[in-house]
Structure formats: structure tokens, C-alpha cells
């Protein structure tokens, strides 16, 4: 669920097409903001009025999460409400139902006319989307929500993998969900971290990020469980690792040291060398500081190969999904591995001379991709790295 619409197909077509879903924002009045763009979920699901009518008590973020989870379970051949006794939900969200809470608050303080309806804030907490998925699927295993800003989705996926490896669950519905809201839109504007145009990761003229919204979900399961039910894996999650810069609340460490640590730990836990990484799905927000720090991290971890490893940055296409960014970028990474293709970064401008030399601009790059690395960096210095391997059949 993203600015390209509903479904993995829409996402992949959008990514491959080399365009951007970052367009003028309609959800709320942007006339007093510095910037006016975002990658908004189109159609009924993106209609901010909808939860107030037929589906009260569900926030937009909840509904994005449910749509993505339903698609993921169907794709996996699993049915919600059946065989969920040993299933868990691991979700990331940075704002939960903040959009609905803002509207509640505007009425509560008398700024907007009308009675503040408690149903608007029934699901306002960070755990709203994950709980909504667990409730809908009738999951009985562990349910854990993490809210670590832009690494939330990736950390949730890593936590799900840990739970599976340790036998706490057989199946994990893992991902993230966030909706656009005024708090984050104004907040990032106040930091002057938003580009007036669509974001331009790794371009020399980049001026900041573009916000997006949506949800993405992976169904993870142990190989034994997948084999037992005859499921065909899409990819293997080799490792997930986190770290912290301990440097600054909003700026990454310039040398990318925290990201380096997360990547190195993921490589170590996967038992593979950096040479094995075939492409990188970068955090690539388009802010001057993030992209520079990320490049330093890639230089430090990939060494002499840094100039040769293809780098993608989905945020130029779908915007920054904040708590769901790590999840949708994990989905994009799996798609790249499946299709043998690195999707391009859209939007024009000169490539930053200090950026990764093989950033994929303009056209998709077809290649034999076996291992993909997805990275996220966040407010508070949190970092996460996920390593996926293409599934080439059950050779074991």
C-alpha cells in the first residue's frame, strides 16, 4: 500500500517505471507549508474521511496495514483466522493514528466545529496497526510493535526473524504502517528537511526528503513450516541487525558509523562476506546529511566494491513512509531479487560526485542478483540492516 496504489503489482510497476508517486498533497491544506508534495495513497483507502464513516475505530494506518496484511497472507497461501495459534505480528509505526488524533484534538480545543468523537482516537496509539492486523487474523502468538522512527519497519522484521529462529512462532506477519499527518509534515518542514520538489536521493542538488504513506507486510516463516505446508519461499531473510549512532537526535553520524555497525553485524550473523552483496536498497532520503552518511557507511563496509554495487533508493518513487519505510523497502528488495532487476531512481539532476558510483538512475538494471542489503537510518540515531537472499529452490 503506497502512493502507487494497492498491491505489490502496483508498487513494482511504479518502481520499474522510473516515475514518482510524489505529487501535490490533497489530504490537508498545504497552503501554509514550505512544501506541498507527498506520496499519498490514492483512492478510497487513502481517503482521510473514510474512517469516520463506515469503518469507525480504524485509523488510516490501521486500514493500510490490514490491506497489506491481507495481500501478504493471500500471497503466502495462508488464511487469516485459521492456523494462527503459532503466528505472531511484528509491526512498526511511527505515528499510529495521529491523523485521526489531530482532527479529534482540533475539535477538542474548539478550533474545529463539532463534537470530538472518541471513536477517532480509539486506535490512535502506535500499536494500533499491528493490533488491528493481529485481531483481524486472529493471531494468538507474540504481537510486538516498535516505534523507532524510520527504522521501525526494519527492526520489526528483524524481531520477527528472531522470534521465528527461537521457536516462539512458526509464522510472522511483519511490516509497518504509517499515514500522512500534519505533525510529521510540519515537523520535517520545521527542520527544513523536506525538498520542495520530489526528493532526489544521491543527486548533487538534493534538498531533502519527500514524505509518503502506506504499509508493507512480509509473511515470514521457518523453512520447516514452509516446507511442511508446501509453500514456495520468495526469498530468505538471512539476518537483521540494529545499531545506534549515539551522536545526535536528528542528524546521522557523518561517518555513518552506526550504519556501518548494523551492516557489519548483519553480515556476521548471516555468515557472509561483504563481497557477497549484489545490490543495496539504500535509505536514500535525499537529505544532504543522510545520503552522505549512508555513502560513507557503504564505503566502509563494501570497501573497493562500493563503486560497483548497484544502489536503489525507493523513496524517490514512493516517498518516505517513516515507520513503514523499512518494510516497503524490504518488499522492494525481495522483488528486486525475484525479478533480477534493480529499480531505478527517478527525477533529474546531476549525480552527487560523492554518491555511490553505481546508483541506478533512469532505467532498471537487470542483473543476476543473489543477495540484497536493505538499510534504514532514523531519528535518534537508530539504524537497521536487513540481508535477503534470492530463493533458488529447495536445494537442501
Amino acid at each position, binding site marked *: 500500500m503506497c502512493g502507487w496504489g494497492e498491491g505489490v503489482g502496483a508498487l513494482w510497476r511504479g518502481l520499474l517505471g522510473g516515475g514518482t508517486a510524489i505529487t501535490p498533497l490533497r489530504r490537508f491544506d498545504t497552503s501554509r507549508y514550505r512544501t506541498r508534495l507527498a506520496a499519498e495513497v490514492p483512492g478510497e483507502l487513502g481517503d482521510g474521511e473514510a474512517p469516520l464513516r463506515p469503518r469507525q475505530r480504524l485509523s488510516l494506518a490501521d486500514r493500510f496495514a490490514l490491506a497489506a496484511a491481507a495481500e501478504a497472507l493471500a500471497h503466502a497461501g495462508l488464511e487469516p483466522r485459521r492456523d494462527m495459534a503459532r503466528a505472531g505480528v511484528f509491526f512498526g509505526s511511527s505515528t499510529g493514528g495521529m491523523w485521526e488524533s489531530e482532527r479529534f484534538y482540533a475539535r477538542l480545543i474548539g478550533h474545529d466545529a463539532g463534537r470530538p468523537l472518541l471513536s477517532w482516537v480509539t486506535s490512535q496509539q502506535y500499536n494500533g496497526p499491528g493490533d488491528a492486523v493481529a485481531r483481524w487474523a486472529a493471531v494468538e502468538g507474540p504481537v510486538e510493535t516498535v516505534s523507532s522512527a524510520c527504522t521501525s519497519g526494519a527492526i520489526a522484521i528483524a524481531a520477527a526473524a528472531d522470534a521465528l529462529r527461537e*521457536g516462539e512462532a512458526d509464522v510472522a506477519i511483519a511490516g509497518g504502517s504509517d499515514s500522512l499527518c500534519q505533525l510529521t509534515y510540519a515537523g520535517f518542514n520545521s527542520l527544513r528537511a523536506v525538498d520542495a520538489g520530489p526528493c532526489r536521493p544521491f543527486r548533487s542538488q538534493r534538498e531533502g526528503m519527500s514524505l509518503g504513506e502506506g504499509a508493507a507486510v512480509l509473511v515470514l516463516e521457518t523453512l520447516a513450516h514452509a516446507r511442511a505446508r508446501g509453500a514456495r519461499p520468495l526469498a530468505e531473510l538471512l539476518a537483521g541487525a*540494529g545499531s545506534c549512532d549515539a551522536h545526535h537526535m536528528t542528524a546521522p553520524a557523518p561517518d555513518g558509523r552506526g550504519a556501518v555497525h548494523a551492516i557489519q553485524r548483519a553480515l556476521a550473523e548471516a555468515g557472509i562476506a561483504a563481497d557477497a552483496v549484489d545490490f543495496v536498497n539504500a535509505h536514500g532520503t535525499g537529505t544532504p546529511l543522510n545520503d552522505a552518511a549512508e555513502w560513507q557507511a557503504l564505503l566502509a563496509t563494501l570497501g573497493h566494491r562500493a563503486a560497483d554495487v548497484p544502489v536503489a533508493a525507493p523513496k524517490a518513487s514512493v516517498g518516505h513512509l517513516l515507520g513503514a519505510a523499512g518494510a516497503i523497502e524490504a518488499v522492494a528488495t525481495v522483488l528486486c531479487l525475484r525479478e533480477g532487476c534493480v529499480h531505478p531512481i527517478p527525477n533529474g539532476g546531476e549525480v552527487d560526485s560523492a554518491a555511490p558510483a553505481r546508483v541506478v538512475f533512469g532505467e532498471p538494471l537487470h542483473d543476476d542478483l543473489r543477495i540484497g542489503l536493505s538499510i534504514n537510518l532514523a531519528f535518534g540515531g537508530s539504524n537497521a540492516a536487513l540481508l535477503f537472499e534470492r530463493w533458488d529452490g529447495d536445494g537442501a
Partner: protein
Amino acid sequence: MSDRGSDQASEPTDGAVSGVVVTGLGVVLATGAGREALASALCAGEARRTSIDTSAGFHAPGTAREAALAQHVDVSRWLPPGRARRLSWPSRFSVAAAEMALADAALDRARLAESPVAVALATSFGTARYAESLVREIILQGPEAASPALFAESVANAPAAQVALAADARGTNVAVTQREAGPLQAVLFAAREVRLGRSRVALAGCSEEINPLVHSLLGRFRALAPPSPEGEVPRPLDRRRAGMLAAEGAVVLVLEREDDAHARGARVLAKVFGGARAFDPTAPPQGFGTGGAGLAARLAAALDRQGVPLGSIDRVVSGASGSVAGDLLEATILRRLFAGTVPPLVAPKGVTGEYAGGHLAAAILAASGACAWRTAGFAQVDPALGLAPHDGSPLPPARRVLASALAAGGAAAWLVLDAPAPRA
């Protein structure tokens, strides 16, 4: 997930945690700073309730007006006022509690930097005052008035990040946001980071802020004990219970590898032996469900797989808070789990209130030899629960503690804590 991935954990352990101990405890709660203040309050059975500011007019008639607030607590010993002023209240509480916990653990700060320290802090409502102020600015003054300083501290992981900055903690850094189950989940998360060798030391716990908006919403959802002639008394497991007491503050534990702790001669407060998590899909978003049988079955299966005989548990530190439906669910689970014979049970939320991690701190105190407190607010057995807390009479020190936490919305978490082994 292939077999390669399971190399790190040689056997499926179902979340079992072995070889991780608690060596430090930092507490900033309404009861005061430090675990001694909490222990005294638990022994006395006294909550410290304070009137909350209702001047904004958010509170509905007939709803609660009291909370266990902690902003009066002097934490200047652990957090200089100059630095505190730049932080949200949850970050202040967290940094102070973390510094206190590290001092309590007597860890060498220089050695601490040699290995990345993980941080996992739970929160239900985040930095509520900052987030509310920011939204208020945007609505009333326009987005151009939004303060970058407020925004930077408005994220849920701000306290965890501020702890990382204070302690130079470079391991995995997360905010666990699973409502009332969050604090125990944060401990399980951090213990896993230590057990899997990712960090030798981890800081885990909870921080919370109860501002008038959050408090008023909890009141509107009928989650809080309403005004009564005795005051807004939370009555865990009592027949007259009508809601909980909302609390703010922070609790932070220092977790480290058991062998490291022994090697440096550290005093161990408790061992994190195991834990479990489950979900009740019958729960509504802001309440508790009726799936006690399922939750009990999940817990029993997890304990069995982790090698925890039910008979080895000799103390329950219950998460019962005074919630009408929540305590009923808690009692159902415990009665089913222990086949009707529940070990001596204490419910500290009658003193600590809900949300700030006081229950977690009480569980650590229970495992480290504290007396069995009577449950504040409890007087009358509820026949519907079929469960009464311990009456406060002397008991031998607990050897194994089960701490429970049920969250509004359906999540549940349990922690198994062992008393420290006697020193050789």
C-alpha cells in the same frame, strides 16, 4: 528462514532467556527516585496520587482527576538541570533512571564503551506533552510555527535515543510500543540482544508521561478509577475495582551476561530466566477480551518448552491494575495456568499505578528478596475472579517469580525471573 539462521540459537527456545542477569535498577516514579523509595512505598501500601491539571477542560464530568505524577522528583543527581531543560519529560525520566541503573550496577563506563549497549524502552503514549504542543501549534498558529525542537523530541523513541546519547549506547535502539505489555516485552527484547551476543550489556525498561490530554482520554475510555469518597483508589483484584491509576516516570534495568556479571563480582538482582508473549484476538482496541483460556494455554506451552515447571514458581507479580475487565482476564489466566492453586500473588499497581514501569521494578524487587507486600487497594474478594492476593504476612524470599502484563488491545507478556544464586 533456513537452518543457517538458526545457528545463532542452537535449539528452539521459544523466547527462553538463559544466562542474562539484572545487575542494576533505576527508578523514577511518583514514589521517588531510587528503588529504596519504591520498596518503602510497596511495603507501606501507599500510592502517591496527585491532582492533575484540568484547566484545559479536557476532562469529562465524573472522570478521574488524579494520577501518580513524577515531575516533582529530584533527579538532578543523575541529570544536570541544564541538560534536563532541553529534554521532554519521558526523556528526563529515562536518562535519570538509566544513569541511576548504571551506577547501581557499578559498571565501569569506560569498559561499557567497548561493546555496543542495546537500549529497549517501552512507552504507551510517547512524549505526549511535546506531541500535543506541536499539534496545538500547527492547528492554532499554522504549520510555520511548528518548533523543530518539539518535533525532534516528539518521536516515541526520543527517550531511548537520549539514553543512548547519555550512555554512548551503540547497540540496537528501540522503543517498544505495546501498551501495558511493553515493559516486559522490552526486557525480553533486550535480553535477547544480550543472549545472542549482540550486546554484552543492555538497558531495558519503560518511560511514560501522563499529561492532562492523555489522562483525560483514559478517563473518557473509563480506564481510570473514578472519584469516590476514598479518593481515586485503584483496587487490583478487588470486588469494587473500577479502574486503574495512571502513572508516569521511568524504570530502567541493566541487563548483562551472567558470566560477565560473575567475573566482575557484580551484585545480581535477578536472573531473566524466560518469558512468553501471546495475543487475545477477542480484545477490542481499547479494552480487554475474554480469551483467557487461549492466553493461559499459550503461556503454559511456553513455560513447558522453556523448562519452567509450574511448581517452581513461588511468587506472582501480577499486572492486575484495578481494571474491571483486565483483572478478570488476569485471574482467568492464572487460575487456569495453576489449576486453581495460584502461588502467593502481589499486585503492585495499587501503589505504582499503570504505565511507568513500576510493576516491572516491583518484579525485580520481588525476585531480589523483597518481602511479599499486601496489595494496596484490595479488601474484598471478587467471587467472579476466584483469586485473592497475598495478605502481606511474612513469606520466604521468592525463588522464582512470574510477572504478568496484559495490554489493552490484546497483547500479553510474561517474564520469569529467578532469585540470584547465592554467592560462592
